[in-house]
């Protein structure tokens, strides 16, 4: 037999050689018979069939297989398999394949059959055929073969016998210990058969599911879940895993997605294509519909570089910081379809998630203690639609004191982010106070971060916890200055020194990222905005501040680069006032309410702060400057106009028009004095009703453009300045009072029309209160 089969191989080779030769000669080939292979059905009856070899699988216990003449189903011998115990140093499992050196033609059979029993009831992991230690093109696997102590016949249907014209893989098996324990099973009478009693072939790809997924050009998607199901002679269905080569795959649009004979789909171009398959004549259940948007859409530039101080950061993933160890950025949890790719954008490392439904990010081996942190930050970029209701969700999980999952001490919270925070095609910073994760009652053993939502494609960068105002920032060490205003002149919003408006909400949810808290500073309650982007204050009731003159607040920040305060009346009508930041210690700011025009001061409903950084605030109140006021403590700013372009009336910085009378007797009540303020001579009108100024000579200022003056008043509620030419022709200009410190105004001379600018003879001030004036001059 052996000699004969070798001969037939030689003959076969000869035929092939002949065949190739004659093709080029275009001779008629019809007379040539196709090569044939032996149709031997027997694999193991009482010993190895002709040409059968055995090879153990790598890592298996190579001595697991033996021929047993004691225990057998029929005849004189069976195959015995001794499955090792767990931890057997000779190998962890029993496994191997029986293959022939000469291929066999098995196309006339419809099943591999064998008898099996075991030393105990057990489930053998896999038994099959088609494993030739090579391409194993027609691998066919029966998974989970339940055996017991009785001999039973097993049938492995051949998915498509017509394919098996040259098969070398006759039989294979693989089985590990059951519950850590080894055992023995026997297999006998292994043979291919033409049963005829196998019926109702059904095939499936993707386990019969109709999958719909997105992909991008160049992406390769192997189609798995290939099965063939037959009804056995017992009326029961048997499903085997079948190699792709049994199937014929078809793409509905090969210009969008091509599919190889091995069922690997390659995305060619944008569009939608559906991949289906046949097993022989049978349409396989299941399909893959894949839609490609073409080339991958990704960010053109890196995420913004974080600015938090490294001292106050626990970073999970950021090139700007040292990162803590993370077990995995994709736990591959069941039902998660997320794929992770590590990419770089302009040299910056970025995590790219594709097909993201949810992804687990785990750091359980070394949990993160974020107790001292105030915020969680990550930057994301998505090409996907972000219009409502699309959401991106961030779940933080703390494993509790036991540091392991469950145990009753876990806590977690998920936040959902939507448009307008979410944006398509641009980096978005998700920067949230940890206090917003209200269900996360502990954060000393953070172990998981789970990202999910409606965005299948998300690029992630700069994932870190930080302490706002952290690093070198420690906040004020002294309390804000204690206000001295008479409580009768004050409507207080936030101060320990006054009765505050009742019912004010200092942290209404306007979608802000700011964390609001109230902290004691040297024993004084202080309002803290950490990580300000914007922050509202909802007054407990509508507030009439029309009788007030100023808004006062004390502010402290060492890391803010922009800060504005807004008053808001219904409409909403809102107006900002820019504050100078960062401050050097506590800054007391007194803002004339007139600067919030057009806000309705009789009906103030809200405050708003806009800017960045960490802001300490105190003593927020409206007040009415009472009569008498106080004097400026600093000199008026020294003007810096070129003296060649100046006609000065009252200034230490220039030569003044000679001979002017600062206090002509026009019947006024005003007391006029000149006082030094911080060493600088200043004109003071006390108890102003009106006050004239007679120039020493008529002045032609038509070559000038602007009237400049510096004024300071704590208690004036009205102030106008007039220019006067002969006639008299006079025109007023209203000045904003009271002032917050020195006010410098530059008034276009056109504002004084129809005054004759070639012939200015007098100035006049009208109003009330005590007014400090300096640097009254024309300039060009």
């Amino acid at each position: 037999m052996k000699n004969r089969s070798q001969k037939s191989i030689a003959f076969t080779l000869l035929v092939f050689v002949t065949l190739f030769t004659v093709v080029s000669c275009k001779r008629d080939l019809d007379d040539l018979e196709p090569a044939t292979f032996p149709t031997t059905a027997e694999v193991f009856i009482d010993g190895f069939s002709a040409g059968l070899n055995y090879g153990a699988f790598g890592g298996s216990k190579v001595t697991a297989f033996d021929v047993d003449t004691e225990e057998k189903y029929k005849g004189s011998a069976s195959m015995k398999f001794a499955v090792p115990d767990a931890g057997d140093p000779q190998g962890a499992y029993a496994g191997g394949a029986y293959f022939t050196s000469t291929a066999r033609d098995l196309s006339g059979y419809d099943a591999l059959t064998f008898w099996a029993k075991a030393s105990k009831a057990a489930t053998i992991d896999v038994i099959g055929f088609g494993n030739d230690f090579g391409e194993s093109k027609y691998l066919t696997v029966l998974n989970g073969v339940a055996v017991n102590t009785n001999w039973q016949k097993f049938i492995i249907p051949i998915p498509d016998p017509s394919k098996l014209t040259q098969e070398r893989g006759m039989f294979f098996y693989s089985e590990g210990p059951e519950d850590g324990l080894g055992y023995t099973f026997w297999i006998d009478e292994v043979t291919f058969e033409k049963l005829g009693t196998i019926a109702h072939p059904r095939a499936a790809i993707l386990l019969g599911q109709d999958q719909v997924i997105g992909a991008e050009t160049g992406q390769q998607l192997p189609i798995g879940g290939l099965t063939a199901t037959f009804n056995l002679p017992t009326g029961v269905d048997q499903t085997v895993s079948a190699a792709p080569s049994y199937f014929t795959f078809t793409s509905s649009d090969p210009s969008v997605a091509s599919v190889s004979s091995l069922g690997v789909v390659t995305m060619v171009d944008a569009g939608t294509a559906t991949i289906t398959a046949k097993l022989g004549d049978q349409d396989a259940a299941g399909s893959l519909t894949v839609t490609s948007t073409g080339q991958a859409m990704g960010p053109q530039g890196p995420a913004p570089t974080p600015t938090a101080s490294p001292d106050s950061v626990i970073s999970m993933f950021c090139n700007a910081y040292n990162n803590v160890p993370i077990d995995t950025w994709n736990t591959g949890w069941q039902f998660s379809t997320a794929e992770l790719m590590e990419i770089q954008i302009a040299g910056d490392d970025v995590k790219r998630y594709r097909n993201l439904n949810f992804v687990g990010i785990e750091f359980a081996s070394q949990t993160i203690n974020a107790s001292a942190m105030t915020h969680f930050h990550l930057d994301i970029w998505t090409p996907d639609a972000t219009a409502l209701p699309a959401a991106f969700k961030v779940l933080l999980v703390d494993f509790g004191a036991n540091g392991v999952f469950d145990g009753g001490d876990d806590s977690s919270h998920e936040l959902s982010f939507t448009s307008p925070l979410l944006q398509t095609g641009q980096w978005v910073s998700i920067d949230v106070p940890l206090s917003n994760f209200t269900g996360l009652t502990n954060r000393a053993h953070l172990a998981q971060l789970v990202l999910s939502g409606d965005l299948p494609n998300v690029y992630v960068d700069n994932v870190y916890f930080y302490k706002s105002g952290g690093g070198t920032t420690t906040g004020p060490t002294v309390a804000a200055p204690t206000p001295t205003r008479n409580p009768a002149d004050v409507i207080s919003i936030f101060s320990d020194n006054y009765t505050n408006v009742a019912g004010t909400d200092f942290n209404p949810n306007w979608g802000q990222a700011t964390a609001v808290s109230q902290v004691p500073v040297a024993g004084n309650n202080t309002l803290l905005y950490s990580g300000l982007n914007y922050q509202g204050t909802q007054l407990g009731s509508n507030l009439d501040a029309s009788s007030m003159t100023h808004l006062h607040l004390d502010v402290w920040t060492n890391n803010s680069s922009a800060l504005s305060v807004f008053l808001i009346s219904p409409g909403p009508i809102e107006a900002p006032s820019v504050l100078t930041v960062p401050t050097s210690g506590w800054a007391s700011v007194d803002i004339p309410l007139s600067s919030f025009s057009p806000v309705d001061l009789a009906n103030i409903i809200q405050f708003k702060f806009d800017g960045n950084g960490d802001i300490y605030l105190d003593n927020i109140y409206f007040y009415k400057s009472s009569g008498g006021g106080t004097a400026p403590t600093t000199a008026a700013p020294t003007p810096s106009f070129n003296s060649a372009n100046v006609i000065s009336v009252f200034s230490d910085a220039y030569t003044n028009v000679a001979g002017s009378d600062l206090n002509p007797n026009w019947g006024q009540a005003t007391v006029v004095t000149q006082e030094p303020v911080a060493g600088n001579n200043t004109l003071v009108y006390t108890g102003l009703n009106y006050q004239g100024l007679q120039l020493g000579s008529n002045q032609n200022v038509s070559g000038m453009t602007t009237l400049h003056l510096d004024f300071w008043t704590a208690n004036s509620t009205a102030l106008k300045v007039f220019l006067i030419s002969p006639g008299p022709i006079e025109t007023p200009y209203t000045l904003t009072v009271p002032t917050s410190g020195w006010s410098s105004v530059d008034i276009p001379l056109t504002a004084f029309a129809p005054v004759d600018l070639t012939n200015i003879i007098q100035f006049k001030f009208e109003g009330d209160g005590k007014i400090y004036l300096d640097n009254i001059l024309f300039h060009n």
Partner: protein
Amino acid sequence: MKLKNLLLTASTISFALFFVFAGCQNDDNAIVKRNWQLVWEDDFNGNTGQSPDAARWIYDIGVGPGNDGWGNSELQYYTDAPENVSLDGAGNLAITARSESFGGRSFTSSRIKTKGLFQQAYGRFEARMKMPWGPGIWPAFWMLGSNIDEVQWPQCGEIDIMEYRGQQPNLVYGTLHGPGYSGGASITKGYGFENDRFDKDFHLFAVEWGEGYIDFFVDETLYQRLTPKDVPGEWVYDQPFYMILNVAVGGNYVGFPTPQTPFPQTMLVDYVKVYKEAN
């Protein structure tokens, strides 16, 4: 229960003794050439979903008059719904067993009969059918004596032209039940394929019945001839019988369906024809 088990065992043994495989014909059962004339037929031509012809068939509905699964502990509830019995539009009657809760049962199916519409003594009764499959599926083409309401079963006689168990898709059985030889003691014989099954394609099941004999056929192969001397009781087959087609689920004869039994399961009937021997 014990009695029933015993009976089942006895009948199993008799199958083992008596069933024959195709190609092993008994020379004693030579087919006598007869001149059959068609007297009744239903070719089940019609539109998909159409109910069987009311002039030819009536329904057995429910779980049996004794509320006992038609005397066999069958598990199905028989309905007349098109989902259980209707034409398939391709020239066949489809009787479909479904796994669905109805009428207190876990399965539905259908059973139709010619009782009161057509009955005949003697002749050739045949049906061309394709079987369902799966453990616990029990289709049948059979006849009962028309006097069943007067004399009760088994005195009326029962001729099972074809019975089949879904867990043995290569075997069918022909059986007589009569007084003194009913249930597990019935006179029966199996016919089997060695390399084929009755659910892969249509096959013709028939009896040829005359005075003193009943011959059982599969695809024109005679595999059993029963005569009065073969039955241990009265020969009650000289009176009119009516025909029944049904698909039972579970029951004493077939056993329970298993989680591996695929549902729904459909028996297709291409045609039923009845002949009388021409003189």
